[in-house]
């Protein structure tokens, strides 16, 4: 970032790429390393959420009726709306990556802005759902005082629900911050066919957030 001021604008309308770190032989080499690092990190993220999904299935096996009852009390409308919002934001992020790679920084900027807005929309909808749960006292552990769920294990369902969706929402917030950072750099026209790794890697993170929701949505809301 600090080098962006010193970098010159090229005739094509984007800033020169930052100098290649000395330990890489070629640009391509550098790109592969950045991408590989991101995929390794995403691998650890998959394993982080693996624990939550295994927890879900274990408790579902112990308390099948409570999970069915509680699933029916989640808002199908808001859950489906949030799925569509996240899928659409993935589309805009993937398209922003395409434009950044082609040096069309302004297009990428607006698409990233739309993605951030959709991330905000997702969090607002999640907030509405959380608010309803707090009003109904459909809460985890000892805070559970919700009479609609009669089968044993209701409090456990809400532990899984709040933990899974809470951790996911935290990832949405981190993803929005990353997208904001690359959107600002798009506005400064920093990306070009030679240099677009930050857009690509922030995008990969955002798609992973979408992937987690792709599984959470049917497991919590539909089954």
């Amino acid at each position: 970032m600090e080098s962006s001021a010193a970098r010159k604008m090229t005739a094509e309308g984007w800033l020169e790429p930052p100098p290649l770190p000395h330990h890489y032989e070629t640009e391509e080499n550098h790109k592969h390393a950045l991408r590989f690092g991101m995929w390794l990190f995403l691998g650890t993220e998959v394993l982080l959420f693996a624990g939550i999904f295994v927890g879900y299935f274990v408790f579902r096996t112990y308390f099948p009726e409570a999970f069915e009852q509680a699933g029916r009390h989640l808002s199908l409308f808001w859950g489906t709306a949030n799925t569509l919002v996240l899928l659409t934001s993935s589309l805009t992020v993937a398209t922003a990556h395409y434009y950044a790679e082609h040096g069309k920084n302004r297009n990428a900027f607006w698409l990233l802005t739309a993605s951030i807005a959709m991330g905000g929309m997702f969090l607002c909808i999640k907030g509405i759902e959380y608010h309803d749960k707090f009003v109904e006292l459909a809460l985890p552990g000892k805070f559970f005082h919700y009479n609609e769920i009669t089968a044993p294990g209701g409090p456990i369902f809400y532990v899984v629900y709040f933990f899974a969706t809470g951790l996911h929402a935290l990832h949405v917030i981190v993803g929005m911050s990353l997208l904001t950072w690359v959107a600002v750099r798009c506005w400064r026209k920093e990306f070009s066919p030679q240099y677009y790794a930050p857009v690509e890697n922030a995008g990969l993170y955002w798609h992973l957030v979408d992937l987690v929701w792709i599984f959470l949505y049917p497991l919590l809301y539909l089954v």
Partner: protein
Amino acid sequence: MASTSSASAPAHAHGFGPGKLLLNWLILVCLTFSTFGVSQIQMPVNYHLAAAICISVVKTTLVVLFFMHLWWGEGINRIVFLTSFLFLLLLMFFVMADVGTRFTLSNSRIAPLPKIDQTMMPTGMPPGMGNVPQGHSDGPGPSSGKAGEQ
């Protein structure tokens, strides 16, 4: 915005253009509605689970291959992602094999819940937790052995 001219395309460009990305998104939206549709059909809950997971796996594949560019990606990145999924499946398989066959607990579709004397419950137990047996239970009923299910 509408221009998809490739005048400035990098020589090594990979990945779909906006049109094909939009198509991928449309398929994903259709799959979302089909998950929703399938969930409204009357059938056993395990079939619902299986259908939901299958559709989610298809959606994941589309996102990973085309939005995340693994279709064009280096082999090492594919290995990293597939390995993390393999480990997820390993963890899931062994834990569920254990839970599904060893414990009965309150799985009342397998065995009736043991009656617990409410006066013996510790105070401050939240509602809904009252009749959850604690720890390993070899409770009554024809439940031990392979009666367990996922």
